[in-house]
Each structure stands twice: as structure tokens, then as C-alpha cells.
């Protein structure tokens, strides 16, 4: 346990150093450009007390969750299809490459133009940004599937659902987890842009408003509160899930 203790101490130390550097920077730059950690904290408390902070974070989280879910499901399905079928691969490869290289901003702006400044447009724009990356990652995993286990499933007459659940998906877990991890951080960043450009609420909208008022304390308060929530999700949900689905893997003693 000394290893875990050491890790904890080092993490706290690095956090303390960041806050210290920030405080020094705030003194040098003045409260208008860079408010002190305490000023940001008090803004955060104010926003929390009024309920606005929680409401905006909740709205943004729902958008992140829905867009992320759509992107992961569609991307995984297309990735498996493309990994298994040559025809599907040849058919979708080029559009996928185009989509992968299309700047997020272009997709967002076009979605708003074509589908109006609506919730659906916002969420779809985010999902479309993430899903090609998931498809490509899962396709790699599908290409590496073990043929031998497929044959076992055939011999013992596994139906489609059983095959997917017990043979295919367990092999894809590392790939889906990699896509999910890079996906979560990508999706929330794009959601903020989408909110800034065309939504009347959410963390991105608040930051946009604060930008117009040059209220740096509010920008930092919202940004840090939201990052804290995302990090908590990563630690409390993504990592335990990964541990659970890979517990069969023999670990180094």
C-alpha cells in the first residue's frame, strides 16, 4: 500500500503546485485577466447557490451523454460491419475518411444551418464528430477477431446474440474502451462549442456569455467545475467498468 500512498501524496503535491503557480500568476496579471483561485472559488459558490451551476452542468452532461451514446453505438455497429464485410468496408471507407478529416466546426455550423438551431441538430452534430473515430477503432478490433473462437461458436450453435455477447464483444472491449476514453474528452469539448454557437443554456452558453462580459472568474468557475465532473466520471464509471470487463485477464502478481 506504500505505492498507493506515494501516488496520493504526489497527486496532492502536484495540485498544490498548480494552485500556487496560479495564485502567483493572478498577483502578477491582476484580477481582470486572471482572478485568484479564491475569487474563482467564490464565483463557483455563488453560481452553485443560485442553482445555475448545477442546472447548466446537468444540461451539458445530458447532451454529452446522449451524443456520446449515439456515437458509440453507431460507431461500434458500423465498425463491426466494416470489419466483417469487405463490401461494407469498400463502401463506407471513403466517406469515413472524409468525415474524420472534416473540422468539428464545419459539421456543427452545417448541422445548425440544415436542421435549425435545435437540440437535435446540436446532439447530432456532436455525435457525427465522434462516431467515425469509434468506427475506425472498432473496425481494427473486428479485423483482429479470433477465427478459432468463431468456429467454436458455430460448432456449438451459438445464436447471433450469444455470439455477439460472449464471443465478439469481449474481444472488442479494449478497442471500445479506447474509443470511449478518447471519445468522452472529445465529445464534451465539442458540446461546449455547440452550446456556444446555438443553444440558450449549458456550460458552453454560460462561458460564451461570460466571454462577452469579459468575466474571467465565471469562465474559470464553469470550466473547472465541469472538468471536475468529467474527471469524476472517468474515475468512478469508465475505469471500474473497464476493470470489471477485463477481470478474466491474468494480472502480474
Amino acid at each position, binding site marked *: 500500500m506504500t505505492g498507493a500512498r506515494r501516488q496520493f501524496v504526489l497527486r496532492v503535491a502536484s495540485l498544490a503546485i498548480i494552485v500556487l503557480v496560479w495564485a502567483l500568476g493572478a498577483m502578477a496579471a491582476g484580477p481582470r485577466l486572471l482572478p485568484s483561485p479564491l475569487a474563482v472559488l467564490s464565483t463557483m459558490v455563488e453560481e452553485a447557490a443560485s442553482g445555475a451551476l448545477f442546472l447548466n452542468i446537468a444540461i451539458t452532461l445530458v447532451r454529452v451523454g446522449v451524443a456520446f451514446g449515439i456515437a458509440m453505438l453507431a460507431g461500434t455497429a458500423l465498425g463491426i460491419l466494416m470489419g466483417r464485410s469487405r463490401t461494407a468496408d469498400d463502401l463506407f471507407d471513403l466517406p469515413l475518411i472524409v468525415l474524420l478529416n472534416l473540422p468539428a466546426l464545419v459539421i456543427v455550423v452545417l448541422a445548425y444551418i440544415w436542421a435549425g438551431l435545435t437540440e437535435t441538430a446540436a446532439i447530432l452534430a456532436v455525435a457525427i464528430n465522434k462516431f467515425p473515430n469509434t468506427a475506425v477503432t472498432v473496425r481494427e478490433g473486428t479485423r483482429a477477431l479470433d477465427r478459432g*473462437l468463431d*468456429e467454436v461458436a458455430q460448432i*456449438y450453435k451459438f445464436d447471433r446474440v450469444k455470439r455477439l455477447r460472449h464471443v465478439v464483444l*469481449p474481444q472488442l472491449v479494449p478497442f471500445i474502451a479506447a474509443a470511449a476514453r478518447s471519445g468522452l474528452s472529445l465529445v464534451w469539448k465539442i458540446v461546449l462549442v455547440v452550446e456556444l454557437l446555438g443553444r440558450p443554456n449549458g456550460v458552453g452558453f454560460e462561458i460564451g456569455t461570460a466571454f462577452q462580459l469579459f468575466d474571467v472568474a465565471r469562465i474559470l468557475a464553469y470550466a473547472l467545475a465541469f472538468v471536475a465532473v468529467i474527471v469524476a466520471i472517468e474515475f468512478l464509471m469508465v475505469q471500474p467498468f473497464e476493470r470489471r470487463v477485463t477481470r*478474466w*485477464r491474468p494480472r502480474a502478481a
Partner: protein
Amino acid sequence: MRLDADITSKLVRAANGADIEVLRDMRLAVEPGRLAALVGPSGCGKTTFLRCLAGLDTNFSGRIALPSEARLGMVFQEPRLLPWRTVDDNIRLAAPDATDAAIDQLLGALRLSGHRKHYPGELSLGLARRVALARAFAVEPDVLLLDEPFVSLDALLAQELRRELAALLGRRPVTTLLVTHDTMEAAQLADTVYVLSERPAHVIDQVDIAIRRIERSAAEVSDIAEDLDRRLGSSHSHA
């Protein structure tokens, strides 16, 4: 269930694009509840033949009399267990209809009772082979296909597993095809031994063993094995 195969030709495409004929006029039949052993030179096409029988490869000319509803048990050259499922789950996934009592008995007979909650990565090769065998028996197969199921185990362990296989077959006879390169193994377990030619494989010799499996003495087994070695050797020099 009777197993009857008549493959006139089976080609495989090599990496360089050329077609290689692996099986030609490969004919054999196994009577219900009997065990036939296939012995033949390495690379002659034994695994290819089993894959055709199992329906894993349907790209051949010829005929296999095996109804599609026939239940198959197969043990591959490697154990091929699902690494992310426990021993118990590996067996139950393949045999969802097996009763708890049947699985208990099977795992007991193969001395796996203490390993039910283990993942395949935690098992030795000998144990993993046992699980593959348990899985094949758990489905109460009509036909059992075994592809060198005891290869690369030490002699003592292989012997132990052969005894366990014989005991399982004694309790519930299954039409079985056993691929092996070990003539002792064939002599010990088979009712009939088919000797195969070099590639393209076909049957060049058939040896029926009259003495029942459980009644064969060690001396008789080694006599039969010696006879098989002779036949294999002479077929080599012809080919």
C-alpha cells in the same frame, strides 16, 4: 448416429494463389457408438477433413451424411476456450440444456470440480484440454470430432486423459472420430483405425480391432500399435 463421408476432392488456396489438393477420394464411415482413429503423416489433411465433417468448411466436392440437427462435439488441436468466461460458463454456453447434475458428474469425471470458477488463463494446458473435452461431452453429442486432443502433454498426463476419455465413452458411447499421430493412442482407444496417405489424403489401410476397448491388455495394445507403425511405415515408402 452413423457418420459417413465421401469427399471426392478438396482444394485449398495457398498464399501464392495456387490451389493445392488436400483430400482426394477420402471415404470413411463410423458405425454408431464406435470410435474410429485417423492416423497419417503430418500435414496430409487430417484437420482439413475434420473441418469439412464439422461443417466449418463447405467448399469441397463430395458428400457428408450428417443431418444438420446432429449435435456435434469438437475438440480442436488447441483448447479454444473463451478466455473471458469461467470454466463453468464455457461449458454452459455450449450446452445450455445440460442439467446441473450432468455437468457435476462430467466435471467430476474429468477432475475439474475444483476449477469451475477459474478463467482459462489460470489453467495449465492439461486442465484446459480437459475443459475442452468436458464442453464437447456436455452437449451430449451425436458425433464427436477430436483433433489430436492430447498432443503436447507429457506422456503420463496424456495417458490419464485417454483413460478419462475411455471412461466417458464407456458410460455414454458416442460416434467418434479421433485424429492422432500416436499409434499407441489409436491402438488403445479405437474400434477401427484408418491409415491415411500423404497429401492429397485418402484411406490406404483400415484396421479393425476385434478386442473391446476395456478388455485390451497392455501387451495387446502395443502389438496393435506395432502393427500400425508397420503399416504406416510401408505406406510411406510406397508414397
